[in-house]
């Protein structure tokens, strides 16, 4: 497949009560990766390690094929990051913050910034620290999109953001991806964002990647089957996620083709089969 914009190999970071990794992750050009996991599963820690704000203990992080620590300034200029980094600068107005960020990024796009400020109705004279949670999120999002980056790292960008602005953000991310050679990693708890934006899903649990898959694979393989009965062979089958023997008798599987073959060989009829929604899949993934 394509060129990867991010390669993480054997990444590890230990804290007193938490360990992230060891972790491998690859993000290909043109893909939007959804990072999903419960609170405290390590999503924000991962972003901070990728941005070299936190020092890793072990492993390797390559952005655009280059070592982040050795080429920090060069590679970071092509990364747009939104993830609660600006809180220490709460005493500055948004205008002053923009001036500071523009100084860091030679590719700062003032036109794009002004366009987005207007689109999201932001008052640039307001002090950042005085802004509401949602407005802070929007301001960070705007900054991440204003320096022609090739990779966006977004840590719950729409948390606390009003519905209309959420829609605008989705549109702006789709527009960002139209260029084709860019990628996004987005941590989210929002099912709509996963459905409408993401191509691949990575599930984090207790600092480790427990699942990583293409969204359409799930649609194709996971299914709920309405059957005449559940044969014994399926009771402990590794591809059966759940079954109920009460009417309607149902089997939930992560490999519909395989289970259909088993059912056929046992002369069990399938009256109906249905794909699962992403929300349902997550519930099963996190329960099992």
């Amino acid at each position, binding site marked *: 497949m394509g060129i990867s914009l991010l390669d993480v190999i054997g990444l590890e970071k230990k804290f007193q009560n938490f360990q992230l990794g060891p972790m491998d992750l690859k993000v290909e050009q*043109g*893909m939007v990766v959804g990072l999903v996991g419960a609170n405290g599963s390590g999503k924000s820690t991962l972003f901070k390690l990728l941005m070299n704000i936190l020092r890793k203990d072990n492993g390797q992080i390559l952005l655009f094929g280059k070592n982040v620590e050795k080429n920090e300034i060069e590679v970071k200029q092509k990364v747009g990051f939104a993830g609660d980094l600006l809180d220490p600068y709460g005493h500055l107005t948004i205008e002053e913050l923009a001036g500071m960020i523009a100084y860091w990024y030679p590719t700062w796009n003032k036109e794009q910034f002004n366009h987005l400020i207007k689109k999201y109705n932001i008052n640039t004279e307001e002090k950042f620290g005085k802004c509401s949670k949602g407005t802070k999120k929007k301001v960070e999002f705007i900054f991440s999109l204003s320096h022609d980056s090739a990779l966006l790292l977004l840590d719950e960008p729409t948390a606390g953001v009003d519905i209309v602005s959420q829609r605008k953000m*989705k549109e702006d991310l*789709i527009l960002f*991806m*139209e260029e084709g050679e860019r990628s996004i990693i987005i941590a989210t708890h929002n099912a709509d964002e996963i*459905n*409408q*934006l*993401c*191509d*691949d899903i990575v599930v984090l649990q207790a600092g480790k990647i427990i699942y990583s898959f*293409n*969204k*359409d694979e799930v*649609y*194709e393989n996971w*299914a709920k089957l309405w059957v005449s009965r559940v044969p014994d062979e399926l009771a402990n089958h590794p591809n059966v996620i759940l079954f109920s023997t009460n009417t309607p008798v149902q089997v939930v599987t992560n490999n*519909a083709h395989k289970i259909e073959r088993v059912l056929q060989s046992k002369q069990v009829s399938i*009256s*109906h*089969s*249905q*794909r699962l929604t*992403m929300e349902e899949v997550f519930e099963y993934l996190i329960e099992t």
Partner: protein
Amino acid sequence: MKLPIHVSEESRVPIYHQVENQIKTLIIGGQLPPETPLPSIRVLASDLGCSVITTRRAYQNLEVGGFIKTVQGKGTFVREIEKVIKQETKQKVVYDAFEKAVDQGKQVGCTKEEMHQIFKEVIKRNFKENGG
């Protein structure tokens, strides 16, 4: 523009194939005339809730089949299609629809004779009212 296409929750047909067939149907039926711009693979994926891998594959197949064309830097457009392809595809669309109807009839326990009867009635009703 949002295309009136829909990925079925029930169908086991791969999503790229469903998308491909529905766009073909819209082109053959004339709802999408030649030169109509189509949404980008990213926008279509977002509308359908699938990944760009799927929409790219559907567009690639449509392009190979001569239904659409991609103009570098401008986007994807419906092509003027040849009469022969149009006729073949038309037949295939109708064939598939009947196939599906028979499948559903069997599911509810319809006999061959009953289905023949229903088919005759539907044809009669539809063509009489239209004067055809």
